[in-house]
């Protein structure tokens, strides 16, 4: 077929306006977060002593880190689905999130006696952490992956991994309210490992479903 003829089909189809890209992402973020919230409150819910825990810096820091991870990764993924857009701010913000966590770990090592490091790192519920963060990530993962398919990511594996980071940030944000291990040593180890699992799954899924 001649290219001039082929253009006729594209122009005829040009009347139908596609849905804006950003809109789908915002809906996926809100919908995925709402679904995770519903799942969280219907199942494990917050820890019983949440009122007193909320007085402590370590507990609150978990939410700051998880929310910052989800937000930075969301900004980045919104760029990755647009061909030619610079990663820019989102990538820098992700490094900032990692730096925040590293700073918290160093501070913890300075203020806690070394005899306590091991106990705080292993914590009491690391297997909960590794299982529940991925489970709580499922809804935003699926919703954001569908939104990303509407985009045009030139790097499908990376885009899928970042979708995983957003989802794990959301899942971990809710899980943090249930988890009784608040030490940055625990968070940096187990939350990070759970996040890496979801990001790795995202890369594998993205490589398959985000091609266009």
């Amino acid at each position, binding site marked *: *077929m*001649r*290219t*001039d*003829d*082929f*253009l*006729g*089909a*594209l*122009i*005829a*189809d*040009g*009347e*139908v*306006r*596609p*849905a*804006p*890209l950003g809109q789908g992402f915002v809906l996926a973020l809100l919908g995925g977060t709402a679904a995770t919230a519903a799942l969280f409150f219907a199942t494990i819910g917050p820890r019983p002593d949440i009122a007193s825990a909320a007085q402590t810096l370590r507990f609150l820091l978990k939410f700051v880190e998880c929310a910052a991870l989800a937000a930075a990764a969301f900004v980045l993924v919104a760029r990755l*689905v*647009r*061909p*030619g*857009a610079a990663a820019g701010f989102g990538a820098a913000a992700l490094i900032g999130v990692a730096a925040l966590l590293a700073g918290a770990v160093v501070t913890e090592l300075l203020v806690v006696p070394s005899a306590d490091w091991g106990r705080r790192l292993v914590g009491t519920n690391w297997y909960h952490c590794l299982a529940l963060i991925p489970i709580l990530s499922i809804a935003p993962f699926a919703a954001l992956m569908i939104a990303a398919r*509407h*985009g*045009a990511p*030139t790097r499908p594996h990376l885009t899928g991994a970042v979708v995983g980071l957003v989802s794990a940030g959301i899942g971990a944000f809710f899980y943090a309210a249930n988890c009784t291990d608040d030490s940055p040593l625990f968070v940096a180890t187990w939350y990070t490992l759970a996040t890496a699992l979801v990001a790795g799954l995202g890369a594998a899924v993205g490589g398959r479903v985000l*091609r*266009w």
Partner: protein
Amino acid sequence: MPVRTGGEAREATWTDWMRSAMGGDQAAYRRLLEALTPVVRAAASRGFARAGLGTSDVEDVVQETLLAIHLKRHTWDMSQPLMPWVVTIARNKLIDQLRRRGRRTDLPVDDFAEILPAPAERDPTESGDVDRLLGQLGDRQRDIVRSITVEDRSIAETARRLEMTEGAVRVALHRGLKALAALYRREP
């Protein structure tokens, strides 16, 4: 010293056309796609030449790229210039095609920087990817795409001829184009 060259002015015009096209201006959309075709063709020809391939299949890359530009036009940020977005899509599609042919894919960016006059299209009687892939669509979608492309009929004419509503023709055309893009992707 920043000088606004002819190329920059032309690219700014194309950006304006795409903005109009996104607002539903079909004439602007036609002008834009007709202007982009030789640019994409020139870049694809250079890519093929660099990979040591003949130019006989270049038109397949051109058509796949134009299809991607069309189906993904909502991923262009309307506040940005158009060409970096076009160039990224064109490079991506070229790399896909070279990969399918088992060629190296480390294309330098400046392959697209300069826009040269494009070589002539291949012999129109020779069938390319689109014709072959159209054969894999459902009968209805294939008839509609053929009617609007090769037979150069409007949506209204196509609807009358196939005894369908115009809305149904539009939906089938859109699905047909999306299916075509998916078939390209599935190529070995």
